[in-house]
């Protein structure tokens, strides 16, 4: 069996599971974000009275944090009331950050667990060796009642990534390149394991970027064997005792793909599809009205640092605005302590408080018709960040910062300190 299958088998109380089998799995931790008030309505509609385990369910207010409209304020109010009434042990209000950053930081993610959240980017937690997957409101309401959910045991595909990136090239470029090569539906109904020499040495933040965007290939979940950096991160934050499941040597993958990244250039996904990916040197001159660094894909300290390395002591283009939203308070405070916030504000950046920001077009920097945005977030679908007539380019935080500096989409390698 694969490690992913072993996680499912353990959660289903079975010795063995087979591909295609439907199993009922016990959930170790569940999270609901603030676009899912519907979950509470469905919970009561289905006869729910008390949640199955008040230590294992939390709300994270991130998509509308702090509330931009009366409607979303009302949604928060009703969810807050529910959390209090049910006595939920963990609650992350508008002062926390994006759920996929907040949960690992708070010690709720560990290898071998089943983590379910009302957000498609829950694949992020494969970075920690967890089975993380997204569901909708009704599925979540059934978990809140029973603590269980049905899963079809997925086919598993292997994506092996070898080599070392050149300076100025980031994990975001790697996953965009893979997306462009394999397409937005290569892993529909399937799970992806990322492995190879590149992955083995990868830092926590970069592992999260790659697993985060696995869902853009349709993946049910993503998985990386936890490395020493991940285990160190978890042990510093969680007292949970866990065993790391290991894939059997004779396991047969449904498909295998190999990528060598030594020569990889910065990548850009052109409007309006995540699979529409080209290297930066093939992009014609594109005006940048807004540049965005943030969200569950690109709002970590390392991402903000990449921007600092390009913008230190300089000013962004007068024709461009640069919106930066740290993924969590921990990220915000760390960036502040290191002086990054000041350096970026001096360079002309606009900061907002931790949350999802304009990634999903709700607030804090949405786009007008005809505007062009280059973003470190994860989706460039029509209307994703505001007007359906706006154009969104996905890129690494370094490429986003270079675009803000020049006012046009630019190769970050020519702007980065010490990189020529």
């Amino acid at each position, binding site marked *: 069996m694969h490690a992913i299958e072993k996680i499912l088998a353990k959660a289903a109380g079975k010795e063995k599971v087979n591909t295609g089998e439907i199993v009922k799995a016990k959930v170790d931790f569940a999270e609901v974000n603030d676009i*899912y008030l519907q979950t509470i309505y469905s919970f009561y509609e289905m006869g729910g009275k008390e949640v199955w385990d008040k230590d294992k369910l939390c709300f994270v207010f991130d998509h509308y944090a702090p509330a931009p409209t009366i409607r979303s304020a009302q949604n928060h109010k009703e969810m807050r009331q529910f959390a209090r009434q049910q006595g939920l042990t963990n609650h992350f209000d508008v002062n926390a950050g994006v759920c996929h950053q907040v949960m690992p930081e708070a010690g709720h993610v560990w290898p071998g667990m089943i983590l379910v959240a009302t957000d498609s980017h829950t694949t992020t937690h494969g970075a920690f060796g967890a089975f993380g997957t997204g*569901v909708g409101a009704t599925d979540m309401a059934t978990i809140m009642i029973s603590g269980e959910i049905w899963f079809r045991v997925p086919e598993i595909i292997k994506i092996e990534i070898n080599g070392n990136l050149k300076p100025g090239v980031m994990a975001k470029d790697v996953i965009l390149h893979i997306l462009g090569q394999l397409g937005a539906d290569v892993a529909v109904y399937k799970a992806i394991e990322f492995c190879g020499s590149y992955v083995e040495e990868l830092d926590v933040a970069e592992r999260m970027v790659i697993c985060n965007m696995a869902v853009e290939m349709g993946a049910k979940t993503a998985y990386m064997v936890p490395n020493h950096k991940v285990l160190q991160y978890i042990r510093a934050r969680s007292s949970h005792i866990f065993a790391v499941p290991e894939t059997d040597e004779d396991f047969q993958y449904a498909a295998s793909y190999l990528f060598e990244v030594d020569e990889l250039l910065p990548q850009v996904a052109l409007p309006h*599809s995540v699979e529409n990916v080209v290297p930066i040197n093939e992009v014609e001159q594109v005006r940048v009205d807004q540049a965005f660094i943030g969200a569950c894909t690109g709002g970590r300290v390392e991402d903000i640092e990449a921007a600092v390395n390009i913008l230190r002591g300089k000013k962004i283009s007068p024709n461009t605005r640069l919106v930066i939203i740290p993924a969590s308070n921990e990220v915000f405070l760390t960036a502040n302590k290191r002086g990054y916030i000041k350096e970026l504000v001096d360079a002309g950046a606009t900061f907002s408080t931790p949350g999802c920001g304009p990634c*999903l077009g709700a607030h804090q920097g949405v786009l007008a018709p005809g505007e062009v945005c280059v973003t470190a977030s994860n989706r460039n679908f029509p209307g994703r960040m505001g007007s359906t007539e706006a154009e969104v380019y996905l890129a690494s935080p370094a490429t986003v910062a270079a675009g803000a500096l020049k006012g046009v989409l630019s190769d970050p390698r020519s702007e980065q300190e010490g990189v020529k």
Partner: protein
Amino acid sequence: MKKMITGSAFLFGDNIDTDQIYPGRYLELVKPDEVAAHCLEGADPSFVKKMTSGDVVVAGRNFGCGSSREHAVITLAHAGVGVLIAESFARIFYRNAINLGLPLLVCPRITGRVKEGDIVEVDLHGGLVKNHTTSEEIQGEKLSDYMLEILQSGGIKPLFKKLTADM
């Protein structure tokens, strides 16, 4: 759930994501009739005006990719879409549709075999699409028994109501 569903076809392409099915700027809405008013607005703003209850949405690969938002299914179901046919569906969207009792059929050969406005009939048990306009039959994938059971119950909510009544 009706065994046979017949309606007029509306065509959509590949990778119709949940932002096109239900734009993020309306996510704060909760009432189903309000949600229904924006059905497929990001792909075709006039869809809601053109369609009538029971009509059929036919799409390419990876329909419903992107966000886990259940609004995407609520909007289609409450706008009155009778059944969805696509070459493939994104996983979370597929689960949400089954859970809310919105019939859908995976039909890898559908592209090019149905035109906008064709009258199509879907047999969910047999996984079969009949195009009455062209008299062609297109075989899709049968739903698993487990999915059919949920759909036939009108979604997972009625099933869970029984469960909680016994708790």
